[in-house]
């Protein structure tokens, strides 16, 4: 394969970043916008070309005997730590990276387009496009990483892009603190990731994914029996690496940054905090999947974290007022869904339960990643239109908007149906596969996640009804809301169409854990159950929220503590606030700073003071009386003479 296209895919966004970032000061906003959109458009076309070449060309480097291969388009040395541990920058093509190329460039392109309308009047428009390009570059670099260290490099870069974009409205203190929080929380997670890489690379002497994943047994063997605190080194490494994923993908307990990240511009939320960056954790686990399979304990850890997070986020989403926060928690919940799905996929199936091909969960998870990116981006962009129209994030400022904003209304509805898992929308198919994989692993996982799916349908439709039905807000008379300009509507329509048809893509033909094609077939029992649950939840939401009534208020009054707790996200932020501000800042940092000034520095000053005091004490001898000097001198000479005489003679 020609290396020009892959290089261009990475080079165009970074070039755009530099051009817009440095030249943006003197560039009119139109030019900046067009440049950004064109750049991303080109990049998208190239990425599609590469992905399609990979999937459909049938070239021997991509597919052998129907099994899709991993292929390193290029891999150049960047930094050589030792002879063996060499960091390379490369471009790895395999099913998931090709799929991610499509997802990222598509969503990114639509977000670029959408932002032209959404951000039109904001100051710093050029800067905004520069940051978007930086993000696209980093994310693309992350997914095509040939080795875990390259992934770490771009992992950090997406973190910074996310920081910059969340804090885009940097004059708002809330945006500043949200961006800081996002960065620090993910940084903390990355610390785990880094230590994980350190451990793994120390024992395996390589960063390369192909070497790590093609022969995970060997990796295990190289780690030998090394253990630490009762768990093997490999377990530690995999769990720590997953910790990085927990940070980026907002798993409990490192989820707290994502809801706050909604302070950023809405298209950014759609791109980074719904479709692409937050699934990096899922992508990481998928990338290292064979290694995780070798360590069941770490896989179980992934599953447990995912299951708890999914449920927690779904519950919290039911009680949020800010529509972006609802979507944020929904994102957390859905990503956790993917995590669980990955965790239940094993490359072996217990005897007697042979039902589906092994690794079904892997395929399902990737499938859901794909569909979720599309419909969640759609939902966020729709939310952006709403915010654009009513200038508020809260649903209390909305209601009855279906008449005023038809395009937004219909596309949003499609998004809701997709996420709720109603056929024939895309979410149904991917979620069905995931649930099938979970039921296959154990009934408990399936039931638990079905419940989460039901909650998802409920809170999404709660949101939908509160925005578009309920009752009309009286303010509309003064300020009539309307759909956005074409730049905003067009992405909505296209993404809605994608959400309608994406479910029919034979995804198993393209992406599976081992490259062999897998034929998706619906599992009737699972499908019917989940549709039924979703429908019940929707009906409940309809009953509660379609027309203005006092049932929700009564429910809230019946369970005030629970509602308050869920509304305040079960006080996680307060706990973190306490730990970071009170304990780390207030106690540790302050006391260290105090110690430094008053103990260490005081000791050093003390030496100086003692010297000074001593000098002052003997200064009186220098009293200016020459006779005193002579007396001292004379007695000294006499004493010296006496000593010399006594000792020597």
């Amino acid at each position, binding site marked *: 394969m020609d290396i020009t296209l892959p290089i261009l895919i990475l080079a165009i966004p970074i070039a755009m970043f530099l051009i817009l970032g440095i030249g943006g000061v003197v560039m009119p906003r139109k030019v900046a916008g067009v440049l950004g959109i064109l750049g991303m458009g080109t990049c998208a076309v190239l990425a599609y070309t590469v992905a399609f070449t990979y999937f459909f060309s049938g070239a021997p480097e991509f597919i052998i005997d129907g099994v899709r291969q991993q292929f390193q388009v290029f891999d150049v040395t960047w930094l050589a730590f030792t002879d063996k541990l060499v960091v390379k920058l490369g471009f790895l093509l395999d099913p998931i990276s090709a799929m991610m190329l499509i997802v990222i460039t598509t969503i990114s392109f639509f977000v670029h387009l959408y932002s032209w309308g959404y951000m039109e009047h904001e100051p710093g428009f050029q800067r905004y496009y520069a940051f978007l390009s930086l993000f696209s570059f980093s994310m693309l670099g992350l997914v095509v990483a040939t080795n875990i260290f390259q992934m770490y490099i771009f992992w950090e870069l997406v973190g910074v892009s996310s920081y910059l974009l969340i804090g885009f409205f940097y004059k708002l203190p809330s945006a500043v603190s949200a961006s800081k929080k996002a960065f620090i929380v993910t940084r903390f997670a990355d610390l785990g990731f880094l230590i994980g890489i350190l451990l793994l690379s120390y024992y395996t002497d390589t960063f390369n994914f192909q070497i790590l994943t093609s022969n995970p047994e060997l990796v295990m063997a190289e780690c030998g029996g090394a253990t630490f605190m009762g768990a093997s080194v490999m377990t530690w490494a995999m769990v720590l690496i997953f910790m990085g994923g927990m940070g980026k993908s907002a798993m409990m307990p490192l989820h707290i940054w994502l809801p706050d990240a909604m302070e950023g511009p809405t298209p950014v939320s759609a791109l980074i905090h719904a479709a692409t960056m937050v699934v990096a954790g899922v992508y990481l686990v998928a990338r290292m999947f064979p290694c995780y399979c070798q360590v069941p304990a770490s896989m179980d850890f992934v599953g447990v974290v995912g299951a708890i997070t999914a449920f927690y986020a779904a519950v919290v989403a039911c009680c949020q007022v800010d529509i972006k926060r609802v979507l944020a928690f929904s994102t957390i919940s859905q990503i956790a869904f993917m995590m669980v799905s990955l965790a239940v996929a094993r490359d072996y199936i217990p005897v007697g339960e042979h039902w589906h091909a092994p690794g079904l969960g892997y395929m399902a998870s990737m499938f859901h990643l794909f569909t979720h990116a599309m419909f969640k981006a759609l939902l966020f962009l729709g939310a952006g239109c709403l915010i654009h129209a009513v200038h508020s994030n809260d649903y209390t400022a909305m209601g009855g908007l279906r008449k005023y904003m038809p395009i937004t209304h219909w596309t949003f509805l499609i998004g809701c149906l997709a996420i709720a898992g109603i056929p024939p929308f895309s979410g149904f198919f991917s979620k069905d596969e995931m649930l099938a994989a979970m039921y296959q692993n154990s009934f408990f996982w399936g039931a638990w996640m079905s419940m989460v799916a039901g909650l998802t349908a409920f809170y999404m439709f709660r949101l939908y009804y509160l925005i578009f039905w309920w009752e009309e807000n009286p303010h509309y008379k003064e300020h009539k809301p309307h759909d956005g300009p074409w730049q905003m509507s067009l992405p909505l329509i296209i993404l809605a169409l994608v959400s309608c048809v994406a479910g029919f893509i034979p995804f198993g033909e393209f992406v599976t854990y081992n490259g062999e094609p897998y034929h998706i077939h619906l599992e009737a029992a699972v499908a019917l159950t989940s549709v039924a649950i979703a429908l019940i939840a929707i009906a409940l939401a309809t009953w509660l929220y379609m027309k203005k009534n006092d049932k929700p208020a009564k429910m809230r009054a019946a369970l005030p503590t629970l509602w308050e707790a869920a509304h305040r996200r079960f006080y996680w932020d307060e706990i973190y606030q306490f730990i970071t501000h009170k304990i780390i800042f207030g106690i540790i940092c302050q006391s260290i700073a105090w110690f430094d000034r008053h103990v260490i520095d005081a000791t050093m000053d003390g030496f100086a003071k003692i010297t000074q005091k001593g000098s002052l004490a003997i200064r009186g001898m220098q009293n200016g009386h020459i*006779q005193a000097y002579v*007396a001292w001198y*004379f*007695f000294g000479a*006499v004493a010296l*003479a006496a000593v010399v*005489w006594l000792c020597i*003679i």
Partner: protein
Amino acid sequence: MDSVGNVILYFVVAIAMVVSAFMAVTTTKILRAATYLLFSLICTAIFYFQMGYQFLGAVQLAVYAGGIMVLFVFAIILTHKPNDKTAPLAAHRQFVGISASVIGAVLLILALFKMPLAKGLSLSQVIEIGGPTLTMHDIGIALVGSEKFQYLLPFEAVSVLLLACIIGGVVIARKK
């Protein structure tokens, strides 16, 4: 065996020297102190003569007892009124001075008697060993020669020093 005359001369001069030195540092009148110093210097000069260093004795008389004493007297007259007495001494200073003197004297005298000096030699013997009296010629050669045991360089240095001293004295004492 030294001649009796020499011994008598020695005693007279030594006692005069010691007494006048003692008086020089104890008298309260400054002009008297200078006078006693003069006596002491003259006695020293006599010792030089007695030891056979006539030139040195002459220099001592001319420079010290002549030149320097004139300076002293001038200075005293310029800075003191007649009958000026020095203020009584503070007790602790007196104590310091006496103790320093006593300790120093004891140490030095002890040292003198303990030192392995050629104590047996008498003055006449050493003058005999030393040969004839130093002539002006010898001293002159030694002063301006540049061989071993000759002192041209210090001689020049002293002359420069004296020049500097003249200039310095003028500069310091000049009225602003």
